[in-house]
């Protein structure tokens, strides 16, 4: 279980200080898929940076499985808006990056990564370079690179916003399925309300800066539905409107 306990963050710059987050608390259960939505500039991505241990809070702490997170931790995987694949490495080497960096590129772990590639339709591309892959495939590779180190929690920082609309819907389904199949906890930051409703069990709505949790919306869909199918459910629009009202 992940807990953010009373987090505040102040940004310092030449022009002065900005309170980005104020007394923000939230908790995410194991295996849960949650989203964070909010007006732009409210500090959504900052929350992920804090959880991943990339930036330190001014006060408050991040607690993962009872331990305080203060620096990047192999239990936490990060997925970015852009895939950031290394063009000079082939797909397999890209996927192995985290394992190599963490000195865990054992036979067992590498074959786990290879299996993930094969399982999610990239088995024929292990020796290809990223430039030969489509945007959707590249984002899938990026997810598998994150999964290869077997993190418990995935932080998704608007991972679909760089894709065109059609690809985005497909990749949302792909990523959702992969995360569910591998039983991971996921925290998605997005400005796309539909995306949040289609994918999450729980949606945290953030206030304007300084960011704090304004409201929590819990969705209730049949657990077999894909994000795309959820979009066609009657209650999809109810949740959508509820969040829309809050953000307006």
């Amino acid at each position: 279980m992940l807990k953010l306990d009373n987090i505040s963050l102040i940004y310092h710059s030449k022009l002065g200080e900005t309170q980005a987050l104020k007394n923000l608390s939230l908790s995410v259960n194991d295996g849960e898929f949650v989203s964070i939505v909010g007006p732009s500039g409210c500090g959504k991505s900052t929350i992920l940076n804090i959880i991943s241990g990339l930036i330190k809070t001014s006060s408050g702490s991040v607690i993962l499985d009872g331990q305080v997170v203060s620096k990047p931790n192999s239990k936490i995987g990060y997925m970015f808006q852009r895939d950031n694949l290394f063009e000079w490495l082939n797909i397999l080497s890209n996927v192995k990056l985290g394992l190599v960096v963490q000195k865990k590129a054992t036979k067992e772990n590498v074959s786990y990564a290879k299996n993930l590639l094969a399982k999610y339709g990239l088995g024929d591309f292990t020796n290809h370079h990223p430039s030969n892959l489509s945007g959707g495939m590249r984002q899938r590779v990026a997810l598998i690179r994150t999964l290869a180190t077997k993190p418990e929690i995935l932080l998704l920082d608007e991972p679909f916003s760089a894709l065109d609309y059609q690809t985005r819907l497909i990749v949302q389904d792909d990523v959702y399925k992969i995360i569910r199949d591998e039983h991971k906890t996921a925290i998605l930051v997005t400005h796309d309300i539909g995306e949040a409703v289609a994918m999450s069990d729980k949606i945290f709505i953030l206030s304007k800066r300084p960011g704090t949790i304004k409201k929590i919306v819990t969705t209730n869909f049949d657990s077999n539905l894909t994000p795309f199918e959820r979009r066609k459910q009657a209650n999809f629009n109810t949740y959508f409107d509820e969040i829309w009202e809050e953000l307006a």
Partner: protein
Amino acid sequence: MKNYSKEHLHFLQKQRFNVFFTHFCRILLLFCIFLIWEIVANAGIVDPFITSSPSRIFKEIARIAKDGNLFYHSWVTLKETLIAFFISSLAGFVIAVILYVIPPVRKIIEPYLIVLNSLPKVALGPLIIVWVGAGSKAIITMGVLICIVVTTISILNGFVNTNVEQIKLMKTLGANPTQILFKLIMPSNLANIISVLKINVGLAWVGVIMGEYLNSSAGLGYLIVYGGQVFNLNLVMAGVVILCVLASIMYFIIAGIETIVAKKTGSNN
């Protein structure tokens, strides 16, 4: 072979022709320049004593090739250029890495780099001769000085402009600074480093010839200056032609390496 439409075959044919046409015109242009040069020199429209002429240059090259001067002087200059090129490329790279890894030092050194970059290094000629002594050492030093600042600045610039998000990715994967340097910064800058080397080849020649002009008893620069002093313009032109050939060969070797690297890393450009 695939089954292309008639239109596509026509397109391919046209493209092949365009490539051929460009090459043909290039050679034709060179040939025309030489031909006109030769004719006006022989007809006495220009004084071949001052302008030389292709046939005279060719004869001069044949003459110095026969008495061994061609090979000797070319080798001296080539050797100096290669040494200056390797020293400045390697040292420039190492300095760039150090400055990148220690940002405070980078900030402190920055204005010095800018001043050194804008300083005409030839002005240091007399100092170099006094400090390292006349001859090959001074010439190589001149070559190194001309190349090293540009190398450092260009490579450092590439490092600093490495994709910030990729650095962040490495950090989230738990990479330490050394791993970020070797697994991300250096490989992602490979293409940039090679293009810096391409510029360096030209600059190394400039530095070495400059050095040979200032002080030398051998080398193509020496040959050219000597030719000028005794009013043997054929020798001067011969020196320039040989320089052209050698510098181009070195450039194309680096360009070839660039293509191989681009293919290996799978980049499309």
